Each structure stands twice: as structure tokens, then as C-alpha cells.
């Protein structure tokens, strides 16, 4: 039978163990982002144009196909790479050629990037080329935004909505 002192010792152990558990379950806190910063997150998954445009099959080519696979057009699977740039206040923050995914390079190219910027007014410009052209951009959007501290500005890309979407 434990003595009173031993019971007190056990109580002290349980108290310490509980304090240790309770404290480390929440503290010390972790600062992910400085309080005076905001975040710009550029992310999209987008299928670029095909490397070779679709073309009409000749009657000879159609005839050579098995009857169940005969069709008027043929399209290559491979997509071109996407070139994207992001500027904040005229300064280039991000520039990359994004390769199409998939073994046949026929999947969407994708990106997911985060940038910390000081809170306040900024001009954000994003532009993207998803065709076979050598220069210039197919989409370009510039916005003047006021970012509050710790605000997260998502810059998405939706071709069916006309290009870059700021939200």
C-alpha cells in the first residue's frame, strides 16, 4: 500500500504530465506569415492548345481506318507548354514554362505558387501563353488591388471565363 507521500508524488507526476500535454497541444504558437504581409497565390490547371492543330483526313486516310474508327478529323494528343508570368508593381515575381502532364503530354499543365507581399496597394499583372505562337501572350490581366494584412489573394486561370480570375 503506497504511503501518503507516495500518493502525493503520484499526484505531482500526473499534474506534470497533464500540464506537459495541455501546453504542447497548443503552445508555443507558430507564426506562419508575418502579420504585416499578405499572400498572392497563383494556381491553375489548364490544358494548352495542341502542338499540331486538328486537320481533316483525306478520303484515302479515312478508308484506311477500320470501319468503326472512321472519322473526318484527326487531332494530335500532345499539348504545347504554357508560359506564364506574374508581376507585382511591375516587378517580375514568377516566370515559368509549364509542361503538360501525362505520359503522352496530353494533360493539363499546372502550377501552384505562393508569394508574400507587403500589405497595401499593389498592381498585379498576370499573363499566359498557351498556344504555339513564339512570342506574345494569349491572356493578360492587370488589376489594382488593396491587400489587407494576412489577406490571401488567389489568382486562378479559367479559359472559359476569359482568362485570369482574381479572388
Amino acid at each position, binding site marked *: 500500500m*503506497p504511503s501518503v*507521500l*507516495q500518493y502525493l*508524488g*503520484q499526484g*505531482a*507526476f*500526473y*499534474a506534470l*504530465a*497533464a*500540464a506537459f*500535454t*495541455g501546453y*504542447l*497541444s*497548443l*503552445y508555443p*504558437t*507558430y*507564426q*506562419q*506569415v508575418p*502579420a504585416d*504581409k*499578405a*499572400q498572392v*497565390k497563383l*494556381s491553375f*490547371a489548364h490544358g494548352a492548345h495542341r502542338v499540331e492543330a486538328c486537320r481533316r483526313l483525306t478520303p484515302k486516310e479515312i478508308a484506311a481506318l477500320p470501319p468503326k474508327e472512321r472519322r473526318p478529323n484527326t487531332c494530335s494528343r500532345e499539348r504545347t507548354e504554357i508560359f506564364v508570368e506574374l508581376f507585382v508593381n511591375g516587378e517580375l515575381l514568377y516566370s515559368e514554362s509549364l509542361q503538360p*502532364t501525362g505520359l503522352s503530354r496530353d*494533360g*493539363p499543365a*499546372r502550377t*501552384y505558387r505562393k508569394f508574400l507581399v507587403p500589405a497595401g496597394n499593389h498592381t498585379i499583372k498576370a499573363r499566359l501563353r498557351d498556344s504555339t505562337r513564339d512570342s506574345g501572350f494569349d491572356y493578360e490581366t492587370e488589376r489594382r488591388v488593396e491587400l489587407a494584412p*494576412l*489577406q*490571401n489573394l*488567389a489568382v*486562378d486561370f479559367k479559359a472559359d471565363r476569359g482568362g485570369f480570375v482574381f*479572388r
Partner: protein
Amino acid sequence: MALIHSVVRKPFDFAEQALGKVFPAQWNPLLNLGALGFFFYWIITASGIYVYIFFDTGIHNAYASIEYMTHEQWYMAGVMRSLHRYASDALIVVMLLHLVREFGLERYRGARWFSWVTGIAVLMLIYVSGISGYWLVWDKLAQYVAIVSTEWLDWLPIFGEPVARNFLSPQTLDNRFFTLMIFMHIAVPLIALAVLWIHLQRVSKPRINPPRGLAIGTFVSMLALSLVFPAVSQAPADLAQVPGTVGLDWFYLPLYPLLENWPGTVTWTAAFCMTVIAFAVPFLPPMRKLPVAVVDLENCNGCSRCHYDCPYEAIDMIARTDGRPFEAEPAVDASKCVACGICAGSCPTSMPFRRVTGLSPGIDLPDLTMETLRDQVHDVCDRLTGDNRVLIFSCMHAVPAKSINVPGVASVELRCIGHLPPAFIDYVLSRKLADGVLLAGCSENACHARLGVEWTQARIAGERDPHLRARVPRERVRTVWVGRSGSRLLESELSEFSSGLSAVPGIKVPPAGPATRERDKVDA
């Protein structure tokens, strides 16, 4: 490697001793880590079921439902939520301590690889279920966990579209992904429970419940913590905001800041390497697989004692193969045997009195036979002088008795204290090879081979076969369960035991007539 084991073991030895001063041996938390793990698991399960009743499983209302539990129904659902959280944290603590302690004690190699590997799997599953649980609160911490986890997963080229895009902005938030998390938070712990069951398959009589005193103390402390410092949510998740500062649960999320700030190549390579090493540890050199127990059917009557006493279920009783008129014979599974010798200690034919037929028990360790032990006993006892001569039988995993350099004291080392057949004590005292026998084993409840101390106590008390004969004066037998770092305690016990032997009557051995001599040939 031995140095690493020693460095890892020392803090445990120290803590075990310190806790031993306030806890009875059977209540010592460090000696019940596995059982405490189960206990926390049940607390988590019970509290989780209760909390789930009030939890809204939709992502848009989850936070509000938890706030209701925490603030409106604080006295029950709030307490349950806190118990759920703190027991989960405590589970990680005891699992990690259990893992490190077993490593330090070298109880992960050889036949024990199975428990190690399945234990690592359980630990990983518990981490996954814990992290998925934080997700469900859908507060700032949940947002942080969700984003960092998915960004980390997105490094792998297995998703067509980055999973983290689900959390790009409030408009992209998807209820389906949240539902998947709820499913994971329920399914993964169930899988962990199944693996826990497998984890215990190679140990006999596993202790999966802590002793009542320890269970009560542990639960009361968890309950007190839940009342004094209840678990609360952080600010609600808002994908239009960066979490900024978060209160991390450092038991589950200590690596999250690294996942967030280090390149995926580094973190994934580190995770892969650490996982491989964790699983491979039992198979890394130096391998020290001891020769396993060997059955000698000539001396075995199939009594099954070795089968019942084996701590690792390494001995099965199978149909007799030698045609002798016994029902069964033991068969040793080499992949499970840790060569602790407890089976040889339990064999009724491990009888040192046998001279004519030779000391060959029904089951024995080939590299430390009973005959060798008897020879060692004679060797060391022949050199004993003085009035109160003491022979120490010590476990090789307990305090090293060989280091005791006291006149009139000798020692013989065993694989486990349960390796000692009680008849050896009788033999030493009745043949007057020594005046007292001291058994030095691992700390009570902390036997290296799991059950050696327990079986030895029961054998001496006459509660388990083979028991120590009644004619042996118990005053001439002393047990000291001290572990590796208890040399001082052993020395003081030895001193007290030795000095008290003069006043103790010896064994009354009948005069050595023809009948006695004949009987000694086979049995005492």
C-alpha cells in the same frame, strides 16, 4: 550500436527508478506504456463517438457545431472533446516512449521484428488519423493543416490537378473533400486497431489494460486537464485570409513548419528514408540471433509447461512423433523464439540432482544448457568461503551481479531469471554449495523477456509449476528485482540478506541412505 542503445536506455533507467519511488512496480507508467496506449485509444474512441453525435459533417457548419459543444454543452460534449484531444496527444507520447524504450532495451531484433514493424505501422496510422482529426474542426489550425498537407501531397505527381486548389479561395471550397476527411478519421483508427491486434499476435498474455490504480490516476488527470484547460477551437477558417499565427499541436504537427518551408524534394526524401530506416531497424547489422531452444524428446513427457510459460508463443504442442506413450510434444518455432530460456526453467526435467543419466531436460538452450549452468554453479561455489556464502543467480538484462566483488558471494548469469528452474535453488542449498541464494532479475513488471519475473515469483510461492520445494527455507532465498541500474539496491539487499543467514535454519536433508541416493539419480 551498443553505445546508442546504452545512451537511449539510460534516461529510461533513471526515470523508471525515479517513478519507482512513488509508484508501486505494477503502477509504474513507464512499465505500462503499451497498456496505457490502449487505454488512451479507448478514451479516444468513447469520446469520439459522443462528439460525433453533435458534429455537423458539412464543412460550412462543422465549426459552429464544435463551438456549440465547447461552449453550450461544455459540461459533457466539451469535456468529451477535450478528452478526445488530450488522450490523442497522450497516445502519441506513450507510443513514442514505448518505441524508444523498446529500442533502448534491444527488444526489436530477432523474433521481435514482427512487433516492431507492426508497431511502426500503427504509429503512422495514428498520426494520419490525428492529423485528419484536426482538419475536421475547420478553424485556422484546420485550414493550416489542410493547406500544408495537400501542398505536400501535391509534390507527388499523382494528382491531375493540385489537391491544394480545393483551398485556393472560399469559392473553391468543396464539401466532398471534407467528407473524405471524416471518413478517413473514422476508418484509419479502425485500421490501426486491426494492426494493433496483429501487433500482439506474437506475445502471450499481452497486457492491454493498465492496472486499475494507474488507469484511475491517468483518467482523472486527463479529466482534470479537460476541465481546467478545455480544448477550444481557434478562429474559424477563412480561405480569404492566411492563418498567420496558429497554435500548433506539437505532438502531431511538429514537422509541419518544415513541410511548409523546406523543398518537397528534401521533405519527401527525408520522409522516405526515415520510413525505410524505421521499418528496417530490426534487420540492420549487427545481428545477434541466439540459438533457439531445442527439444529433447528422450526427456520430454509432453507436460506443456514450456508451452504455457513461453512469453512469445514460440512453442506449440503437436502430436507425438517418437511413438512414446505421450499425447503431445513441444515444437519450437524458431522465428518466434528469443532464446530467453524460460521454457527450460519451466521444464520439470531440468533437475540438477540428476547425476547418473546426465542433466538433459526436455527442452534446453543449446548454447547455455542446464548442464553448463550446473557446472558453473559448482565452479563458482567451490571458490566460496566464509560463513554466509551467497550465490546470486542474475538475469543478464538486470544489474550485472558479476561486478559485485564481495567475499563469500558468487554469481551465475542467466538469460532471464525465469531461465532458472527452482530445483537449482533447492540443489544449491541442500548440497550446501552456498548458505543463501539471491535471485537478481529485471525490475518487477519490466522483465526483459516479459514474464520471467512473474513466473519466478509464482514458482517460488508454489503457485506455478515447477514450484520450489517446501523444504527450502524461504529465509535462505531472496529475490531482488532491480533492473540494470540498481546495483546499490542489490548490494544493500545482499548485505542485509547475507548477514541474516546465520540465524536461519538450513534444509533438513534426510541421511543419505541407499533410497535417497537412488532417488537423487533421477529426481529430488
